């Protein structure tokens, strides 16, 4: 029997699971698939309503998950992530005291808070000449988007014989290829300034690769996140998954929960639909971190929005006809506030279940796109739910 079963292996579920396994509890993650993190920039957005991250805190509505966690809790979540990443080959840069800007592949700037070391030098890159290095035939990355938007820029192409970010990343892990690339780079004429490269500098040790290139050409270098497949997102996800496994955590990947067993106010077990015969997993406590619509944590039908695992009550903003807005990606789209409401202990509000906690983007009132609080909220609520769960068990 496990102490805790975490359902969902995204940023929030992983954060909760790492904390619990680190506290010595026997913990497992069940996840139907890989999380949204793998498609993300790998940068941690905390809150961006103008100015510093916490400047916007007071403007959040009462029911926003951040308000339930508190400022201290948000900071704890970020610190936990930074500590984990600091002991990996991909340390993170930044603090809750400031937001920063990173260059995107279309030459715009994205506001975020914590970034992998490989994107550190993106901040302030518009203050000097910027040279973009890309690869002949690389799909979905067009340096002229950047050079046509930003004045003092130029680019060069290297022919690596492959056209995907993943293939390039595999090549950058070979010393021979790295040498070849560096000697090419040293041979071309680049005006004084910084050098940027799409995020392809290997999956495992991108910082080391970046530093080697940087020292060999004597320039400051940084990565630009790409469209998915996104190496920085994968690196973040895999580092957290490994951190969990190093703490003794178990993973069950690739199958959804098919049923749950509840007796009285207690969730006793969940069953996942594995090949051939279902696998039953028992636990003393459960954490629901199945994400929002994009991961299937919430599911919309014509009549309603459902939570498919426990069939928890879902807060839905108004009538269905009000969900329709011209632009889905418009900040403040009502459907962005849909989700599970929780009480101060992060148990589902209005439910009698005593050993179930909820965290991450499945939470109601989060409005992630409007508030730009994606990974930051997953970290903060994941840690908070885990602490509540720990308090109940220990």
């Amino acid at each position, binding site marked *: 029997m496990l102490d805790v079963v975490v359902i969902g292996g995204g940023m929030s579920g992983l954060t909760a699971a790492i904390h619990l396994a680190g506290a010595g509890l026997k913990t497992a993650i069940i996840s139907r698939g*890989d999380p949204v993190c*793998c498609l993300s920039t790998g940068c941690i957005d905390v809150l961006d309503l103008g100015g510093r991250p916490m400047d916007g805190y007071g403007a959040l509505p009462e029911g926003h998950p951040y308000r339930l966690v508190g400022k201290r809790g948000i900071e704890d979540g970020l610190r936990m992530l930074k500590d984990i990443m600091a002991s990996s080959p991909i340390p993170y840069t930044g603090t809750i005291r400031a937001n920063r800007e990173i260059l995107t592949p279309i030459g715009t700037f994205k506001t975020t808070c914590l970034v992998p070391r490989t994107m550190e030098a993106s901040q302030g890159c518009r203050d000097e000449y910027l040279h973009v290095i890309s690869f002949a035939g690389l799909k979905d990355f067009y340096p002229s988007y950047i050079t046509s938007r930003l004045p003092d820029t130029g680019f060069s192409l290297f022919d690596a014989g492959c056209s995907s970010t993943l293939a390039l990343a595999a090549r950058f892990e070979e010393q021979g290829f790295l040498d070849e690339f560096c000697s090419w780079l040293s041979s071309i004429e680049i005006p004084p300034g910084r050098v940027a490269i799409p995020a392809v500098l290997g999956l495992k040790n991108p910082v080391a690769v970046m530093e080697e290139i940087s020292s060999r050409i004597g320039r400051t270098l940084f990565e630009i996140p790409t469209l*998915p497949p*996104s190496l920085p997102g994968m690196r973040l996800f895999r580092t957290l998954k490994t951190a969990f496994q190093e703490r003794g955590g178990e*993973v*069950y990947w690739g199958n959804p929960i098919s049923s749950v067993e509840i007796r009285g106010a207690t969730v006793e077990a969940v069953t996942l639909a594995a*090949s051939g015969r279902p696998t039953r997993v028992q636990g003393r406590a459960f954490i629901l971190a199945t994400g929002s619509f994009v991961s299937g944590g919430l599911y919309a039908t014509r009549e309603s929005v459902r939570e498919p695992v426990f069939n928890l009550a879902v807060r839905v903003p108004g009538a269905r006809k009000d969900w329709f807005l011209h632009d889905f990606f418009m900040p403040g789209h009502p459907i962005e506030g849909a989700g599970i409401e929780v009480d101060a202990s992060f148990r589902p509000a209005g439910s009698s279940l005593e050993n179930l906690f909820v965290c991450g983007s499945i939470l109601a009132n989060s409005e992630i796109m409007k508030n730009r609080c994606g990974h930051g909220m997953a970290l903060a609520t994941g840690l908070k739910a885990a602490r509540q769960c720990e308090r109940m068990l220990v």
Partner: protein
Amino acid sequence: MTFEHCTRCTICVENCPVYKVEPRFPGPKQAGPDAQRFRLDPEKSVDEWVKYCCQCRRCQVSCPYGVDVADIILKAQLKYGREHLSPLAAHLFANAYHFNKLGSTLAPLANRASDWPLTKSVLGLFGVSRELDLPEFRFVNLERGRRRMGRGRKVVFFTGCHLAFNRPDIGRKVRDLLASTGCRVVMPAQTCCGLPALGNGDLDIARKFALKNAAMLTRYIDKGFDVVYACTSCGLTLMHDYPGILDVPGGRKIAENTYNVYAYLFPLLQAEAEGGPLGTLELSLAYHIPCHLRALGIGYPAARIFEMIEGLTCSILDDNCCGLAGTYGFKKRNQETSRRLGLIAAQAVRDTGADTVVADCGACRMQLSHYALMPALDPAEIITQAMANTPKRSRAGSGIAQKILQTIQMKRRSA
């Protein structure tokens, strides 16, 4: 879920080992859901590249929407195989069982013959890669060593070809472990699970094998036996393909009564250990999780047993395909893909600094020991050795594993 549930998020692409090293393969999203919209039954397949998929199933495991990406690709591979003349290597590997059987009957000769330059060049003409040595045959294969023991639970051990013909010593360790917990173990005559034939585009041969096994297994299940497997690829075939694409009579019953041997042993060994350690072994392991164990959705049962062993540390590595993928890497056209993936997986093993690598799959072990230049063991060898080191149990550790482990420990002590 069908191809129509794909949202094109590319998470499957991120997880595809072949895509990152083989430019001729367009990746699981395109080979699976994308191309599926254009595959019409009566039309002859033109997507020859679909054969570059090694069926590691990582795409399907990672898909957040539950799309059966690997199954879609497998069906396309079988359709292609049905409509086109297969290369000789594919025939050879689809029928690997018969060659294995012959090879182990003539073991001394066959082993020598597979080292001859002439054999290698002939195999080369057939499209067989010469990068890795073909596995060695053992004369005393498991089929010959049939025995019954114990009076407890009744268990059929589905050994799979690798343990039967190449590593009967591991097969015997698995059998003895089961017997030591009181199981009555039988190893009735069995044939290839059918996976190599599926992997080589031949549904008919795969089904022929599967029907034979299914008849045998259901007979035993009806008499109250459980089925256990040690090879995780055979396991996945029994659990997923027998009731699925192979659709054999009794397929569902087999899937419902079949267990991974370490999942089966875990509660039994736990009871035996009575809350204390199961055994002792001062060793650090890199546990390479075979892709097909991952795809089974049962967690990593051997790792739970390792936790009961004093002195053992274990790093779990579940992000890499070893690249051999059964018979895939033995084909010349896949040789370079297999080599590069082997190097990536081996590097991950070496990065852990572990003494030795462990994997539940014979193909992974061959590949990893070749590229990581270290011994690769089966979990049964570790568990047996740890239990032998416990004074209260006098079971003898033996064989290859013991020698390897002793060497490692001597090196550690002198370091």
